[in-house]
C-alpha cells in the first residue's frame, strides 16, 4: 500500500472508511412544496458530504476525463472538491500526501444504466425483484427510488470496483417504465441517504421487442412496433393536455380548484417542461430515428439512448441531435433487435463526434466497466480508429455524467468538481487493474488495504461469505 504522510488533516481524510461505519439515516428536510399541483421533491436527498480534509495524490498517471493523460500527475482534493490537477504540482502545506507512483487515477466511475437496489441480490429470489411494474404499458407514475433496497450487496461490489455514481432505472417491459433515480454509491440505510443531491430525474422509455412481447403476449396493445409508437403518442397527447390545463390554472392566478394531480401525467409533463431527462431503451437504428421524430412532434428532447447497439448505423444523426449512446462492447445476439451489435459501437459513435457511454445493466458488469471500455477501445484500434485512453475514459465517467445531467458536479478531474476519485493499481484499461482506493466527495469509501472497509450490506453479516 502507499506510504501515507500523516498530518492532522490527513487523519480526517484517511482514518476510517465510510464503508466501515454505521451510517444513520438523516432526518428528511421538509418537502419543498411549490403549490398544490406539484411537489417537485417530496423524497429529498438526505445525503450530505462527510467532513473531508486535504489530500494530495502524487506521482500517478492521471486520466482527467477532460481530455488529458498526465504522467507523474498530482491530484489535490480539498474538503470534498478537486482543487488542482497537473504534472509535477507542488504539494501545499496541510495536505496529506499519498504516494501514487506506478498507479493510475481516474474520476469515479459512473454507470448510466443500473438496476442495483431495485433487483437486488440474491437476485434469483423473486422477493428481491422490484424492477418492472409489468402491469400496464404506461407506468410513468412509478419511481425507481421507491424500489431501491440500500442493502443490495451489489452496491458494495460496485464500490469496490470504483463505481461512485449510478442511475437506477425501472425495467424495460413497459413503454413508459417510470422515473429513474441517480444515487451516490455510499453506504446508507435509506435510499434518501444515497440520493445524489440536485441530480435531475429521468424517464425510462422502452422501444422494440420488450413491450410488444409482454403486452402482445397478453392480447393487449402494444403487440407490434406500430402499437408501441401509438402508445407513446397517446401518452404525450395526454401529457400535453395535462400540462396545458395546469399552466392555464397557474397563469390564471390559481383561482378555484386546480386540476387533480396525476402522477403518471406529472412525470410526462416534467419531460415536456425539460425538467426530467428521457432515458430511452432502444436498440435498432430505425426505431431510434422514429423516437427522435416523436420527440420533435411533442417538443421534448431525448437525453440518451440506452443499449442502442445499432447506434453506429446512425452515428452522425445522434451526434447532430446531441443524444448520448449508452451501450456495451461485448453483449449481443440475445434477441433479434441486438443481432447486429458490434464491439465497435461506442468507438463509431465517438468517432462521429457523439457522446459514447459504456454502461452495465448488470450487477456483475458494473464491476468491470473499465474492462468493458477496454474491450470497446481495443475494437476501435482493431478498426484503425485512433482513440486515446484519455478520451476513452470519458465513456465511463464524463459522458455518463452528461447523460445523467450531473456533468457540472462529477465525471472529470477538474478544479471545482466533486472529489470522486479512483486510485487504480494499474492502467484501468488493463484486465489486472483493481481499484485500490475510492473517494466520494473527498471521503474514502473503499480502501482495499483497510479491513475497516468491510462490506456494508447487512444481508451478508454472519454468513459464510467474504464479508471481511
Amino acid at each position, binding site marked *: 500500500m502507499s506510504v501515507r504522510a500523516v498530518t492532522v488533516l490527513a487523519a480526517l481524510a484517511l482514518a476510517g472508511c465510510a464503508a466501515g461505519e454505521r451510517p444513520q439515516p438523516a432526518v428528511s428536510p421538509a418537502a419543498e412544496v411549490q403549490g398544490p399541483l406539484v411537489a417537485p421533491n417530496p423524497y429529498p436527498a438526505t445525503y450530505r458530504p462527510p467532513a473531508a480534509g486535504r489530500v494530495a495524490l502524487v506521482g500517478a498517471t492521471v486520466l482527467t476525463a477532460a481530455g488529458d493523460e498526465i504522467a507523474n500527475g498530482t491530484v489535490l482534493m480539498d474538503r470534498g472538491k478537486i482543487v488542482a490537477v497537473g504534472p509535477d504540482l507542488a504539494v501545499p502545506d496541510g495536505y496529506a500526501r499519498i504516494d501514487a507512483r506506478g498507479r493510475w487515477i481516474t474520476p469515479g466511475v459512473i454507470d448510466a444504466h443500473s438496476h442495483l437496489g431495485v433487483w437486488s441480490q440474491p437476485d434469483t429470489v423473486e422477493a428481491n425483484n422490484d424492477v418492472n411494474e409489468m402491469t400496464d404499458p404506461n407506468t410513468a407514475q412509478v419511481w425507481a427510488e421507491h424500489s431501491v433496497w440500500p442493502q443490495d450487496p451489489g452496491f458494495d461490489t460496485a464500490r469496490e470496483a470504483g463505481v461512485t455514481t449510478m442511475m437506477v432505472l425501472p425495467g424495460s417491459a413497459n413503454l413508459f417504465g417510470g422515473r429513474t433515480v441517480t444515487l451516490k454509491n455510499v453506504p446508507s440505510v435509506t435510499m434518501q441517504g444515497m440520493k445524489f443531491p440536485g441530480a435531475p430525474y429521468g424517464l425510462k422509455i422502452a422501444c422494440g421487442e420488450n413491450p410488444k412481447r409482454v403486452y402482445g403476449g397478453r392480447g393487449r396493445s402494444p403487440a407490434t412496433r406500430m402499437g408501441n409508437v401509438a402508445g407513446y403518442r397517446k401518452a404525450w397527447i395526454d401529457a400535453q393536455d395535462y400540462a396545458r390545463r395546469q399552466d392555464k390554472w397557474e397563469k390564471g392566478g390559481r383561482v378555484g380548484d386546480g386540476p387533480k394531480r396525476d402522477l403518471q401525467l406529472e412525470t410526462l409533463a416534467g419531460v415536456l417542461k425539460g425538467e426530467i431527462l428521457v432515458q430511452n431503451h432502444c436498440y435498432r437504428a430505425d426505431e431510434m430515428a422514429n423516437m427522435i421524430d416523436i420527440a420533435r412532434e411533442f417538443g421534448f428532447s431525448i437525453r440518451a439512448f440506452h443499449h442502442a447497439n445499432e447506434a453506429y448505423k446512425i452515428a452522425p444523426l445522434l451526434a447532430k441531435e446531441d443524444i448520448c449512446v449508452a451501450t456495451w462492447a461485448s453483449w449481443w445476439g440475445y*434477441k433479434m433487435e441486438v443481432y447486429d451489435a458490434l464491439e465497435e459501437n461506442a468507438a463509431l459513435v465517438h468517432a462521429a463526434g457523439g457522446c459514447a457511454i459504456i454502461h452495465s445493466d448488470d450487477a456483475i458488469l458494473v*464491476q468491470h466497466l473499465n474492462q468493458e471500455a*477496454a474491450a470497446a477501445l481495443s475494437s476501435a*484500434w*482493431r478498426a484503425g480508429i485512433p482513440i486515446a485512453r484519455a478520451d476513452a475514459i470519458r465513456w465511463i465517467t464524463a459522458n455518463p455524467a452528461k447523460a445523467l445531467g450531473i456533468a457540472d458536479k462529477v465525471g472529470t478531474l477538474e478544479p471545482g468538481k466533486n472529489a470522486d476519485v479512483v486510485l487504480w493499481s494499474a492502467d484501468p484499461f488493463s*484486465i489486472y487493474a483493481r481499484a485500490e482506493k475510492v473517494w466520494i466527495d473527498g471521503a474514502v469509501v473503499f480502501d482495499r488495504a483497510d479491513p475497516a472497509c468491510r462490506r456494508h450490506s447487512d444481508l451478508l453479516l454472519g454468513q459464510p*461469505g467474504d464479508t471481511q
Partner: protein
Amino acid sequence: MNRRLLALAAFALATSARAETIAIVDARLMTMAAAGEIERGTILIRDGCIVAIGPAVTVPAGTKVIDGRGGTVTPGFLQADSTLGAVEVSQVPASTDRATHSAAISAGFDLSLGLNPDSILLPVSRLAGITHAVATPLYDDRAGRDLQFAGQAAVIDLAQGPAMITRPRAAMVLEMGEGGAERAGGARAAAIVALKAALADVRHFASHRADYDRGKGRPQKLSRIDLEALIPVAEGRMPLIVKVDRASDIREIIALAREEKLRVILDGAEEGWRVATDIAAAGLPVIVDPLANLPRSFSELGATMENAARLHAAGVTVIIKTGSGTAHRARELRYGAGNAVAYGLPHDVAVAAITINPARVFGVADRVGSLEAGRLADLVLWNGDPLEPLSQPQAIFVEGAEKPLTARPLELRDRYLPRAP
C-alpha cells in the same frame, strides 16, 4: 472419431492452404507442455501440423513467415461451458437447439447431433482466441420440471467445417443444489435420493438388458433412451458434470461420487473455496466462473473473485469459464482468466485453465490445448498479453487450418465505417 478423421483427411487433401510451411518466429510461446514458456521462439507448421517448436528452430527456405515479435502464442482456448453451435439468437426458439423439454429424452439428449457449423457465433468466438468449446445442453424446464439430466455435452471445434465434433458425448450434465432440488420435488435430499435411484436403475438395466428386451424388466422412471445413455456414467467411463454451488452440496456430491464410483466434474462451485481441500483430496476438477462473486442465491452467499486462486492453491485442477451455457458472450473467456489473475491465480495457471486443463478433463488433450511437435496447429498469435482486452489475435489456426481474422460483425462494421474524406 472416425467420421472426424476421415473428414479431416479429405479436407487436408482438398485444400492447398494446408500444404504449405508456415513459421511464427520470435514470439513468446506459452506451450502448456513440458517445454513450458519459451521467452522467444519459433513454431514451424507444415501441412497443418507443428513440426518443430523451440528457441532455436531453423526456418527452411520458402516458408511463409509470420513475425511474432512482441507477441505471444497460446494454444487455442477452450470455453468449457457453452452452447456454441446450438444457438443463433437466444430469444428466437427456432434458432436454438440447446435444450429439450421432451419427457422421454433427458440423459439421452445428445447435443452433438444437431449443431450448426455455419453459426456466425463461431468466428466471433474465434476472434477471441477460442478454437474449441464444450457444447453443453441446458435444461428446458416446463411445468413439473422433472427432467433429471440436461443431456450430453460434446467438445466441438470452431473451424466452421462440416465435421465440427471433436469428441461427442464427452460428459453428462446434471444440476444439483437448488435446481436439482426443485426438479426432484422441492428438496435437496429428494434430488440425492432420486439420483441414487436412477443410478441403481441404470445398473439393473445394464445387467438385465435381456429381461428388459423381453418386457420383463422392473418398472423404470427413466426412459430406455435415458437408461442407455447413463450406462457409461454409472460405470465411471463418462464424466458427470455436476452444477452445484453451496459448500454443503459440494460435500454431498464428493461423497456420492465416492460411493457410486462416478467421475465427477464440478461446475460453478462458487463456494468451492470453502471445501477446497476436500475437492482436492477427491481429485475432482472444477469449472469456475471467476467473475461470479455475487450472492445470487442462498447457495452462493460465499461467492468471491478469489475462488479460482484459492482452489488452485489447495491443489484443485481449475478450468475457467465465463457465464453459464454462454454463446454470444463466449468471447469474454480470456477476460475471465485475466480477472482470475487479478485476484491471485498465477498467469500461467490461468492460461492452463482455458487450454490444457479443460482439454485433459474432457479427453481431447491429444489434439487440443498445448503446443508440441507432432500436434495439429491449434493456436493463436496475439499482439500482446492474451488475457488483456487491448490485445488482439494476429493469426488463428484451428486444428491445422489458418482461419481469416474476420466475422460477420466485422463485415458489418466495415459497411458503416466512416469513409475517408
